[in-house]
């Protein structure tokens, strides 16, 4: 299975090359891979339906990470859809993109997406699943933004990425929690841990995180809005990612985890409510759309809601219904999308109001759409019919508020019937319209929808095959053996059959009177569609502005404010530490220690302090430099007094040199003005005064205890015998710690280079202007 997944990624890189050399056949060639995978899957079917196929690759010692795959009924069903529809889509894309320069990139992205999606449904490891999950988000992002020249596309792509990406991160947290709580990272092993998981205090957080992930990916309310937005993508993409496969990922995840996490009240409540709201909202909003693709998108949202509802319900019947519907939906919705794309391709419009009577011009299209539409409406003999029967059955035997549930499901299903009619009767029947540039699409555009439509019929006529396939999937969802009994036509009148009939009749009536619904729908539209979407837009639009305000406030360009932050943070941390963890203690005998001060030392101290005061008051350069000099020389004298002649010498010479430099460099600068208002001065004085006091206190505390320095005596003893020198300081500098000195002279050397360059290399001088302006050079 790893090979199948990897092949997709690898061939994705080859696709643009193929497209360059064989532009006409590239799509079909690319389709060979998914077709091959499809065949291989069929080959594996027997094993998959039985014990399942497991593949494990040791990959990484990171906790929880392995690369393991598991092919069971559910993943087989999904993988068949992914590869089968994938092959048809690539052929379709080949025709759709005919003659377009960047077609190769599209094939590449589609293949990469297919591989990610396959990985997602085959993965048996929580982290591996997440990896593929995110990959589908990324490829989807690139595909939605296909028409990147248009602002609309870019916005939609970003929107989809943020919504699904954000959900994905929540999901990651959820998955990690599952792994940590259950102690197992393999999905197959999770069901055995269901008790541990559900009794854990973290169950609810896990569920909510999962909900965020699944609902955002599968376009559930309130995250549904990204999906209709994603319709800016080319139609092959919409048909593949945004109806048949990627949007099912959330549903798949719930199905996959329901044996481990499902079956509780919280689970049912959360997902049934979400699902039902989405079902109704999507369904009814689909009635309002004039754009074929948007209508189908809303209808897809609705179908996903239906699936989530069923998974939330969690009964055996619901699992069966979900599996059946999953299959049927992929077939008819994929077909309808492709039909919509083909019509768009042929006529240049997707506007339902401008399309009528196409049956004459596009008989094949009418056939494909008809098959798919019938399945969607749930007409007997087609796959959709059986699915609908099971949905109603699941509702009727759900226990709890049966009638409410049934009624809501009915309301949702009616909308499907209306959409099915829009996609068939409305556009194909009636007098034909004339289009200016009408050109009938070729076989490449019809093969896909036709095959999918026909499959819908075939599955309806071959109940055993459908039952086996869906039954195995249902078993994985339900977590216990399941056998589905299917039939071509019901042999007795059941409540479910009546409900089906009712749905169809209501749908037809509603279709005829759909204009009457307008005001209702508008209300719904404004409340629900614009609500969350607007909130999102405001959030995403407002975020940069908010961020800008916050950032500009901090990063205001004023150095003194930065310094203040540093000093403030430092004092705050110290204050907190001392308050909460105990201070450094109070030094003892301060007076006694002060008493040993001699007179000349006192004078020195006073001179230094006076110099400091003068520095702070200075408002001409000369005063400043002279006062600094006083402080510096004062320091040097301290060094002399306390046994450090070397230091004093260096300090004196550096000080002298420093003063010279100061004068040399700065004498051209104007005098300083007092810029700060009194309040700032006061504030700064208090803050810096505190800082100074802290340092003083620390020195006193530390010097309170005698120091036994092993270094001092060792150096004193070693200097002459080992270092051959009498001046211990110098021996330390050039020998014991010569490495430091080497660093020190390096600093000096580099400083010289830097100064030299600063003074000599200037923008706008001679041929050096390239280095100029803020944009700089690469």
């Amino acid at each position: 299975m790893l090979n199948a997944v990897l092949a997709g990624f690898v061939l994705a890189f080859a696709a643009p090359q193929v497209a360059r050399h064989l532009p006409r056949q590239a799509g079909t060639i690319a389709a060979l891979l998914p077709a091959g995978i499809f065949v291989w899957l069929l080959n594996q079917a027997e094993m998959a339906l039985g014990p399942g196929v497991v593949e494990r690759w040791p990959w990484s010692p990171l906790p929880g990470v392995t690369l393991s795959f598991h092919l069971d009924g559910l993943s087989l069903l999904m993988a068949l859809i992914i590869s089968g529809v994938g092959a048809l889509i690539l052929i379709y894309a080949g025709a759709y993109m005919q003659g377009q320069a960047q077609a190769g990139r599209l094939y590449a992205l589609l293949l990469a997406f297919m591989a990610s999606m396959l990985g997602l449904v085959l993965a048996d490891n929580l982290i591996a699943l997440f990896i593929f999950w995110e990959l589908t988000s990324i490829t989807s992002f690139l595909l939605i933004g296909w028409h990147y020249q248009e602002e609309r596309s870019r916005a939609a792509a970003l929107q989809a990425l943020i919504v699904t990406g954000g959900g994905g991160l929540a999901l990651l947290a959820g998955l990690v929690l599952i792994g940590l709580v259950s102690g197992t990272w393999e999905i197959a092993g999770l069901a055995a841990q269901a008790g541990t998981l559900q009794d854990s205090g973290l169950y609810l957080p896990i569920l909510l995180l999962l909900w965020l992930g699944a609902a955002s990916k599968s376009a559930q309310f309130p995250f549904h809005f990204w999906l209709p937005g994603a319709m800016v993508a080319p139609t092959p993409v919409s048909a593949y990612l945004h109806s048949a496969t990627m949007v099912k990922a959330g549903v798949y995840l719930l199905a996959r985890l329901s044996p481990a996490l499902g079956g509780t009240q919280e689970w049912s409540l959360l997902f049934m409510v979400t699902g039902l709201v989405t079902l109704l909202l999507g369904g009814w909003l689909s009635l309002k759309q004039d754009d074929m693709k948007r209508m189908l998108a809303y209808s897809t949202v609705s179908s996903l809601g239906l699936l989530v509802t069923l998974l939330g319900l969690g009964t055996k019947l619901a699992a069966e219904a979900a599996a059946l519907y999953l299959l049927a939906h992929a077939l008819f919705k994929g077909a309808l999308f492709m039909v919509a794309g083909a019509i768009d391709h042929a006529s240049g419009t997707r506007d339902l109001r401008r399309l009528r009577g196409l049956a004459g011009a596009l008989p094949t299209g009418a056939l494909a759409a008809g098959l798919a539409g019938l399945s969607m409406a749930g007409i007997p003999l087609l796959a959709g019919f059986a699915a609908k029967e099971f949905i109603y059955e699941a509702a009727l035997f759900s226990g709890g508020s049966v009638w409410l549930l049934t009624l809501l499901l009915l309301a949702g299903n009616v909308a499907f019937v209306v959409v099915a009619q829009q996609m068939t009767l409305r556009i194909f029947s009636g007098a034909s319209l004339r289009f200016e540039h009408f050109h009938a699409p070729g076989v490449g555009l019809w093969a896909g929808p036709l095959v999918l439509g026909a499959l819908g019929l075939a599955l309806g006529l071959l109940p055993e095959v459908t039952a086996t396939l869906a039954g195995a999937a249902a078993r994985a969802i339900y977590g216990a053996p399941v056998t589905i009994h299917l039939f071509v036509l019901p042999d007795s009148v059941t409540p479910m059959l009546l409900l089906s009939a009712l749905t169809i009749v209501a749908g037809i009536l509603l279709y005829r009177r759909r204009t009457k619904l307008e005001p209702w729908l508008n209300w719904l539209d404004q409340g629900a569609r614009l609500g969350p979407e607007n909130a999102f837009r405001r959030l995403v639009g407002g975020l940069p502005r908010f961020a800008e305000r916050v950032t500009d406030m901090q990063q205001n360009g004023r150095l003194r404010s930065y310094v203040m932050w540093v000093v403030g943070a430092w004092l705050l941390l110290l204050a907190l530490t001392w308050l909460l963890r105990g201070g450094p203690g109070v030094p003892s005998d301060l007076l006694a220690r002060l008493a040993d001060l001699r007179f000349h030392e006192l004078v020195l101290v006073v001179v230094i302090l006076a110099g400091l005061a003068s520095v702070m008051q200075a408002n001409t350069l000369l005063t400043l430099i002279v006062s600094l000099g006083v402080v510096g020389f004062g320091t040097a004298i301290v060094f002399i007094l306390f046994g450090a002649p070397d230091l004093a010498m260096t300090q004196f010479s550096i000080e002298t040199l420093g003063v010279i430099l100061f004068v040399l460099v700065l004498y051209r600068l104007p005098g300083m003005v007092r810029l700060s208002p009194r309040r700032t001065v006061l504030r700064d004085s208090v803050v810096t005064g505190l800082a100074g006091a802290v340092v003083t206190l620390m020195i006193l505390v530390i010097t309170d205890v005698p120091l036994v320095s092993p270094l001092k005596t060792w150096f004193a003893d070693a200097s002459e015998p080992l270092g051959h020198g009498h001046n211990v300081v110098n021996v330390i500098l050039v020998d014991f710690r010569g490495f430091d000195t080497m660093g020190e002279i390096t600093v000096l050397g580099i400083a010289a280079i830097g100064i030299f360059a600063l003074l000599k290399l200037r923008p706008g001088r001679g041929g050096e202007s390239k280095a100029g302006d803020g944009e700089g050079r690469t």
Partner: protein
Amino acid sequence: MEVALAIVIGALYAAGLYMMLRRSMVKLIAGLVLLGYASNLLIFVVSRLTRASPPLVPEGAHSVAEPFADPVPQALILTAIVIGFGLQAFALVLVRRAFQAVNSDDLDQVTASDRPDLQA
């Protein structure tokens, strides 16, 4: 003396930071110079003061006789002084060039590289 010097060092710190909080570039440098003095003196004082002789081995002897000043902080400070000098020299020239580029000593005018909105 330790106590007195501790106060001096505290004052040096306070003054250094205070000068860094001014708007003038020249004062900024002065602040940095003061902080340099402060940290050097701090190392000196914190490793205990002694009025005793410098750490020189007398001619003919093999070791320094107690009491003597700790040579280690002296060596550190020497290194730090020299490094500090290099950095200060660079900073001085930088300030001069910045002054030429901005045409003002006022640090509040030196904001263009932080705030894109203030950039022309």
